[in-house]
Structures are given as C-alpha cells and as structure tokens.
C-alpha cells in the first residue's frame, strides 16, 4: 500500500509552533464594526473576531481562537496581515491562501512571501484534513467583511463548510 508523502515537520514548522505558543492579535477591540464567529465543527476549532473599520480599510482587529495549532497560528498570522488592508485586498489574499492550500490557481498579483509568515502554511497541503483549520480564520474574516459591505453588522457563526466566503 503506497503511503502518501508525510512529513510532520512540514505541517508543524517552527514558525507555526511559535505562532501557536504566542498568538498575535489577541486583543480587545472597543466599538467594533464587525463581530464574527467561526467554527470548524469537525475538530472543534472556534474563533471570534472583532474588527474596527475606517471606510473599507481594516483599522484594527482582535482575534480569539481556541483550537488546534494550525487554526490558532493561521489566525495569528491573519492578525499581522489584515491591519491597514482594504476589503478588496483582503479578499484577494484570502483567495490566494486558499489556492496555496488546495492547489488551486494562484493569483500572480499576490506575493504570499511578503505577508507575515503565511507562506509556511503551505505544508498543510500534505494534510488535506487540516486545510479547514488553516482557512477558518480567513473564512471568518471574509464573511464578516462581506456582511459589513452589504450594510449589516452583528455576529453569526461562519463555519468552514461555507466555501463561498473565500472564492
């Protein structure tokens, strides 16, 4: 029986473990414009996100993620990337990350190497079951941003079954 390529070190690279042990972005946001929750029901990852906007730019955001190392690390990296970016930019970045993880078509405009440490998530590709963990934070963010764009606010739970949020 052929075993697929598997190197645990690719999944849990030192940078990811660092983000897991000391996750960035865990702060309170007063008067958030967006509050959104996300869940990965399969393995019990839960994330709560609060975002303060200035127009269509993310002014500040706070993340609280209780979950596996991949979901926490991804949320931590997101908090370093999102600040100061516009909604259209963030949608493109989310799509690029999804493409990196699922082997989809990569947008040449986005250089993930320039964005925090998010490139190290590429190892998750070898572990398809964990892709949802890596995408949870982004799915949650984009869903919140889209609702904000449509003039809604308040929280609803995103789950990583909602593919449309990151397309």
């Amino acid at each position, binding site marked *: *029986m052929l*075993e697929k390529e*598997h190197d*645990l070190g690719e*999944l*849990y690279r030192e940078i990811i*473990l660092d983000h*897991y*042990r000391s996750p960035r972005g865990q702060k309170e946001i007063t008067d958030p414009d967006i509050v959104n929750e996300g869940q990965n*029901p*399969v*393995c*019990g*990852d*839960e994330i709560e996100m609060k975002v303060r906007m200035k127009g269509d730019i993310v002014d500040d955001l706070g993340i609280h993620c*209780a*979950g*596996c*190392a*991949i979901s*926490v690390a991804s949320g931590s990296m997101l908090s370093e990337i999102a600040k100061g970016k516009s909604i259209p930019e963030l949608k493109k970045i989310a799509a690029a990350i999804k493409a990196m993880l699922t082997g989809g078509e990569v947008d040449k405009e986005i250089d993930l190497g320039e964005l925090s440490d998010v490139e190290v998530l590429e190892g998750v590709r070898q*572990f398809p079951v*964990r892709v949802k*963990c890596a995408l949870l934070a982004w799915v949650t963010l984009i869903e919140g941003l889209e609702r904000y764009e449509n003039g809604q606010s308040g929280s609803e739970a995103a789950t990583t079954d909602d593919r449309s949020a990151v397309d």
Partner: protein
Amino acid sequence: MSHPETRMKTDVLRPPFVSETLDVERIRKDFPILSRRVHGNPLIYLDSAATSQKPQAVIDALSQYYSEYNANVHRGLHTLSEEATAQFEFARKRVAEWVGGVGLDELIYTKGTTESINLVAATWGEQNIQKGDRIVLSRMEHHANLIPWLRLAEKSGAEIGYIEHHSDGTLDMDSAASVIDERTKLVALTHVSNVLGTVNPVKEVVALARRFGAVILVDGAQAIPHFSVDIPALGVDFYAFSAHKMLGPTGVGFLFGRRELLESMPPYQAGGEMIRLVTYEKATWADLPQKFEAGTPNIADVIAFGSALDYLEQLGMDSVRAHDKMLVGKTLDAFRDMEWVTVYGPDNPELHVGAVSFDVEGIHPHDLSQFLDSKGVAIRAGHHCAQPLVKSLGMGSVSRASYYIYNTLEEVDTLIDSLVEARKYFVG
C-alpha cells in the same frame, strides 16, 4: 452439506485458556492488519471504540460465503439458497444465545445500533409518544441515542428530560429518580458511554422506569463487545448493538425487542421479505422477525458475525473484560501522575470500560492525534458523536484511546511516552 455448527467453528484457538487475562501474543497473530506499518512505525491501534479490527476467521467467513454458497436468503428452494438461509439463521441463533437466550423472533437484524434505535423511534416512538409525554435520556448519549429522540420530541410535542451524571462520569441516581416521572413514556440509556467509559446501572434504571410503566431502550454498542450481557436478566424492552465493535464486519447490528412490543409496532421499512400476502391494493406483514427486515440483508456479514462470536467465545468474555480492565487501569494510573493530563470518566477501572478520553494541556486533540499518527499510534480526537457531552466537559473536542483484545501493556507505555514527546514538541 455440512452441518452449520461445524462449518462455523474456528479452530485457530484451542481452549482451555487458563490465564486470567488473554494470551495477546497469540491473538495478535490472528489479526493480519496488526502487521501494518504506519509512517515507518508499527501500527498501534487504539481506536476500537470506533471500530474493532477483524481476525482472519471473520475475514475468511466473508470470502467463504461468497466463494461457496452465496445466494439470497429466505426466498429460494435451491441448494445454495437453503445453505445461505441456514447459515444466516444459525448466526441469528448464535446472537440470541450470546445475549442471554432471547427469542429468535425478538432479535431483528439491522445494519447497526444507529438503525436499531431509529427503527424504534420511527415505529414504537411515533405510535406511542404524544404531546406532553416525557422521554428521558442521560447526558452522555451518543448522537444515535439522542437525535432520533430530539426529532421525535419535536414532531410529537413531547419533552426531553435528562438524567445528570457526577463529575466522575457515573450516573446520578437521585437525578434519575426525580426526572423519571409519571409523564415518562420512554427511558433511553447507554449501557457504556463511548466517551466516558462509564458503565451504567441498567437494572436500577429499569426499576425506576417500571414505577411508571415506561418503556426502556438501551444502547449496548460499547457494552456487548466488552462483557457478557444477559438481556432477559436486565429486564429491558429494547436493546441495540453492532457487530463491528466486536470483531464483526461493519453494516450489521441487532435490535432486541420484547415480543409484545414488536408485535404491536408497525413495520419500519417496507418491501420484500417483510410481507405475507400482497395485492395491488394492500399488503399484510410477515411474522417476526421478518416483519422488520425488509430487503436483502447483509448476508455474508451476518454470517461472519457468527464467526466473530465464535472467536470471542473461545477467549471467554470474563477474560476479555479482565484484559480491558488491566489496560484501562494502567492508563488511568499513568494519567493520574501526569499533571498536564485531564482524564474524563470514572477513575476506577471496575466502573470504566474500553475508552479513556483525556485532554493534554497545551495540545489540541487534533494536533495530538496528528502527532501520534506520525508515530503509528491511532487514537481518535473530536466530539466522538457526543457534541453536547464534550461541550459539557468544557471542551470543543477531546482525545480518546480505546482498547480491545489485541492491545498490549507495551502499547499503553508507547501511548504514554508519545504524549510526553508531544508535550515537548508543542509546549516546549
């Protein structure tokens, strides 16, 4: 044609086995999958609560059926059909004896515990549960013994009452006595919890139910694999269990139901086999058990389940239980000394069967099971089909190691060592 009894006996193991626990070295040789390697390591399979591995005798029984006497049951007059039918019904007889000698007409073949419970909910349940009635459950039920009742309650307007349990996972009998009241029409309870490992005092709960004439259904999926269950002695109305958690193939389960109840219930699925006379206008039903066995059953797998019972019989269920107690006991002892491990369920291996669920501080169960997998150790992480229970433990998910007859004390050692390694890897 050889007599069914001779055809089915396995001669791989020869009694008598004098050891109080099991000769695991010998047993492991009967399980071909245990020689697999996973990521370069020997497989250490600690997920038998999810499904058990199968001995060669069971695998052979499947092939033998398809190679030698495959035919549809109950329908034909030709030789193959007679042989298949005889073997199928002989397997049912084996199962009936296994659970304390219930009537053959009281033992319905289903595709598993989940289907067994759904059958009762859809027939007896819909017929007998009305608005204002109470269905009593414990808070440690598997989704299979929770969701059918939630649906029934919603549909009928009945309410659900819950029996609480103590922090060590044992059932709170004061809570049971107070929640089972005159409105209660049904008590549905798990015999052994697949998360906490708790063995529930079924007879005592039956007594509480009988005060008000309530019907009692027991989910025995995690019980029957681990110890002898005498269904008539328990005094229950319905009892459900699966083959695949006790060396049998997937896709097979049984429902015991008291004859009077089964006779009063309408059929579950309709189709072939479960009828007597059919016109274009109506149909009449077959006798029990066929009334509830529509369509072609999982013939090979029911027969192979008989082989699984043969295998367990040669080991002796007392030894099976003693072995499990030893492994669970060793795990509980080790975990007790690890300050960063939280264990769920009873601390006493007398009251704790099969599954040990736990949490490692600083490591999410998903990461832990990934790490252990890279060492060849298979545990399970998640909500274990018991989301509300796991949430009530304050967790989104927990890790679970579960044992069966082919696991060794050395494997428990490897589990513990791997947890120590994982702790260094993730926490530092």
